[in-house]
């Protein structure tokens, strides 16, 4: 199985992805381990986003909604009924699937920018609903998860189990993406993104294809939401479901390279540490770190508009060629 997926272009990236789990062990302390956890988590989230939006080239700026559904479902089940987040995660996935079916059913037929903006609308509506349904969600007060370490609670004292968990999450999402890339679904999805009518004429049921991918993307995102909640141990609508979170999915995916299985991972590996470290070390002038991050993004986009991944590929291909050339001599 793995063997088949190790296609020639991706082998280097697979190595990077698989090897990245050793990084947290070499980090000097929990702070850097925390950044590693966030990096893995956001890599997985951005890859989940990419599964629909990247391949189909239709940006969702509302994925914070599914992050929120995942986080809230498992947390409320855990806090109110003591149901293990592992099970809550599945419940969250199911709720996300339903939400994605409803949202996708109404918006997937919209064209380009109309679709993009409709995703914002749904996420905002969900946020408002979460704030106003105080009886269920505790509204703006947020929900706090008591610190009771244990595997079944998905809570640990050390960062290392979290690093494993988020890394596994990332790898699973990657596997799904890579598998999909070489499947009927993947081909159909990319074709629909390129030209919906032409794809239909080749026998692609475009609404079904998009809906399946959209639901998969939402469900995987919501799994990440559960992990996120169990890690931060506090969720509130305004931060979990914020537009900024929705935007972060896209920032990472596009920076790395949208519509490629590993692009979002590369994006997260680069941007998540950078933005955290910038915030950590540039806090003396307020606003400076986001300002710098914005400048970095602008620079990347103006000079490398395809994202970083294609560049990276060129670089590695160059290396491979070189090594072959030297061998030849």
């Amino acid at each position: 199985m793995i063997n088949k997926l190790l296609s020639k272009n991706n082998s280097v990236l697979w190595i990077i992805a698989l090897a990245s789990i050793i990084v947290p062990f070499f980090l000097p302390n929990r702070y850097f381990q925390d950044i590693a956890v966030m990096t893995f988590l956001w890599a997985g989230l951005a890859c989940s986003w990419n599964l629909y939006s990247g391949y189909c080239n239709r940006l969702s700026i509302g994925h914070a909604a599914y992050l929120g559904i995942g986080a809230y479902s498992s947390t409320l089940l855990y806090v109110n009924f003591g149901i293990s987040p592992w099970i809550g995660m599945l419940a969250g996935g199911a709720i996300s699937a339903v939400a994605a079916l409803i949202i996708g059913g109404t918006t997937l037929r919209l064209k380009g920018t109309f679709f993009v903006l409709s995703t914002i609308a749904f996420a905002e509506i969900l946020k408002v609903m979460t704030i106003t349904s105080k009886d269920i969600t505790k509204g703006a007060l947020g929900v706090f998860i008591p610190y009771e370490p244990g595997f079944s609670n998905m809570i640990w004292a050390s960062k290392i189990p979290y690093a494993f968990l988020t890394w596994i999450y990332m790898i699973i999402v990657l596997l799904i993406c890579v598998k999909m890339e070489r499947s009927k679904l993947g081909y159909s999805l990319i074709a629909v993104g390129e030209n919906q009518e032409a794809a239909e004429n080749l026998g692609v049921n475009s609404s079904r294809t998009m809906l399946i991918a959209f639901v998969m993307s939402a469900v995987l995102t919501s799994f990440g939401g559960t992990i996120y909640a169990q890690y931060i141990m506090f969720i509130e609508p305004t931060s979990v479901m914020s537009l900024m979170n929705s935007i972060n999915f896209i920032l990472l995916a596009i920076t790395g390279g949208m519509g490629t299985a590993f692009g979002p991972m590369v994006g997260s590996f680069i941007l998540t540490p950078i933005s955290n470290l910038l915030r950590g070390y540039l806090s003396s002038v307020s606003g400076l770190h986001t300002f710098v991050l914005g400048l970095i993004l602008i620079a990347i986009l103006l000079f490398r508009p395809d994202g970083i991944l294609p560049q990276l590929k060129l670089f590695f291909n160059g290396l491979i060629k070189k090594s072959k050339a030297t061998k030849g001599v």
Partner: protein
Amino acid sequence: MLLKIDSVTKKFGGLSAVSDVSFELEEGKILGLIGPNGAGKTTLFNCINGTLPITEGTITFNGEQISGKKSYQIARLGIARSYQVTQPFGNMTTLQNAMVGAFCKTKSYNEAESIGLNALKTVQLDHKAEIVAKHLNLGERKKLEIAKALSTQPKLLLLDEVMAGLTSTEVQDMVKIIREINATGITIIIIEHIMEAIMSLSERIIVLNFGKKIMEGTPDEVSNDQRVIEAYFGVDEGDEEYA
């Protein structure tokens, strides 16, 4: 009868782009479709393959009524079409383009790959298999249109001006390719403004004008019909005219 078009009408608002057209097509044949610009030829294709819902009439394919079905369903039943204005999936390679069509009949990646490659071979595009489609030139795009359609393994192939923009020599190449495709048992309807091609390929030709079928016959009959000459060919004014 593979295809039976029965009094099909397609209206855009007040305009009848196709009006009350009927014809039948036997398996294995090549049917030509000609007519002035705007006569409704492309629209008729769009009606047959379900891109556009028809206003009136019925279309029967292989004994099954297909009017009202969605275009992907019709594609799966075995009707494929090429676009007059080529519609490649620009960021996919040529082979991947063809494979999208191939997945219509199979779920296996490897099988789809070999079907796609075969289709590319048929149109002599296999040497560009790994090229990203947006880098193809017009002639290659036209071929890719055919390859995409072929890879859905259709029974009926609708070709819309696949030779426009080619020189006579290239046209003759393409004619050969189309003959080969036909020889594998695929029925073809072809729209073309290039007479040398359509006359030599088609067994029968249907002429549309203002959405109506004005004539159906062998190439010879069609080219000598006065109505068709007036509406379509124009009176040949001879060489001197341009001097």
